[in-house]
């Protein structure tokens, strides 16, 4: 073991990637067996470096201080006589540190391999891509036969439902018209009660009412005439239609 304080001054803390790096430097410099680290000496040397850094007024990263604390803790555990209650776990206080150092050494080794490989593969050169038309694309149809069948079934079902629905609608229209016809008969009869001659075009004018209503009105007029409650006149073809109330001879049925 050499005294570290002498050469520490020429090494800047920046040269070490971290506390593990510094520890490794010390281990290699002292040709130490990593599995049997003389913790007292290593700790002393490590601390020497930190003190040297402090003297040089360099900022010491917190990680280095944490490692210092860890080393001191291990050192104290190694120096203290083993207590009986602790003996059972029979653990080397250095174990965790050793494992971490081994892990770190692997990383360092692999980092070295990477550096070498990079230098080797730097000799390989690539070509810049040619300009290619960018917007070109191929459309691939993504279809499903089962979906085709499903859609077909659904379409037919909808068609079937619609057909049913339309006949239903027709019934409703007829029903609606029946009510309406009755209503129109009632309207006409009410007007006829006033004992006047009605002008069909005045009551049911296509300009004011719908074709359906005009037709229904006409049907109502025919119905009334049929029942003998009114007389319908039309003097000329396509001429005005007049509806007159028909007097009921009361004593006729008497």
């Amino acid at each position, binding site marked *: 073991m050499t005294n570290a304080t002498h050469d520490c001054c020429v090494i800047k803390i920046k040269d070490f990637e971290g506390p593990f790096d510094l520890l490794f430097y010390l281990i290699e410099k002292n040709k130490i067996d990593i599995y049997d680290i003389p913790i007292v000496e290593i700790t002393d040397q490590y601390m020497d470096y930190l003190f040297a850094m402090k003297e040089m007024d360099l900022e010491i990263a917190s990680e280095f201080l944490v490692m210092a604390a860890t080393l001191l803790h291990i050192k104290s555990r190694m120096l203290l006589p083993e207590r009986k209650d602790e003996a059972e776990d029979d653990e080397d206080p250095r174990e965790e540190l050793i494992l971490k150092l081994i892990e770190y050494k692997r990383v360092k080794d692999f980092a070295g391999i990477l550096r070498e490989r990079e230098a080797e593969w730097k000799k390989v050169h690539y070509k810049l891509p040619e300009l290619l038309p960018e917007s070109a694309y191929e459309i691939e149809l993504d279809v499903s036969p089962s979906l085709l069948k499903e*859609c077909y079934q659904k379409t037919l079902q909808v068609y079937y439902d619609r057909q049913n629905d339309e006949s239903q609608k027709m019934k409703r229209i007829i029903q609606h018209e029946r009510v309406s016809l009755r209503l129109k008969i009632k309207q006409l009869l009410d007007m006829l009660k006033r004992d006047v001659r009605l002008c069909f075009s005045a009551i049911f004018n296509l300009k004011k009412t719908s074709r359906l209503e005009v037709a229904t009105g006409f049907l109502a007029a025919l119905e009334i005439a049929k029942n003998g409650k009114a007389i319908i006149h039309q003097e000329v073809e396509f001429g005005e239609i007049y509806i007159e109330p028909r007097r009921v001879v009361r004593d006729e049925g008497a």
Partner: protein
Amino acid sequence: MKALSPEDERKLYMYDLREIENILEAVLFAAGDSVSIEKLSEIINQDKKTTISIISNMEMKYKNSSRGIMLRRIGTGYQLCTKPEYDKYIIQLGYARKKQGLSQAAYETLAIIAYHQPVTRAYVEHIRGVNSDNVILNLVEKNLVCELGRQDSPGKPKLYGTTEEFLRVFGFNSVKDLPHIDVNDIQTVMDEIPVD
């Protein structure tokens, strides 16, 4: 040191020539762009005349041998480029395969045409209950549906059917392969559909 026999000299030259050709290939590849004869002769440490003869020889070799790339003289320089006959493959590098599905309307229309072909547009619209003009046009554009002729009825409406592309895309061997519809009440409906 023993002098080389003419045979050995020739062999050595052959070896050197090969190596020079490799160097030129590597250099031109890395450059991507054209490289002047001056630069090339400087790199292979030969005079301009020798360089030109070496590279002209390479030009012929690329041309006549089975290769995907070739050498082109551009002005006073040379450049590696792909042979024009492989252009159609290179273009595909830029292709992005877009997967596209069909709309509900397209499926419906396609199904009616597939199951009832040949059919008119009016027939499709009768079953779907909506205007199907654009949908059919779209299916024709996608080459899933095509015109099969005209119906011998007033107005001579166009008749539509499915294409080979339709069979390919859906994976049917023939139109007879269409999945069978086994719903009985739908079958009844089909009987009721008036043929126009």
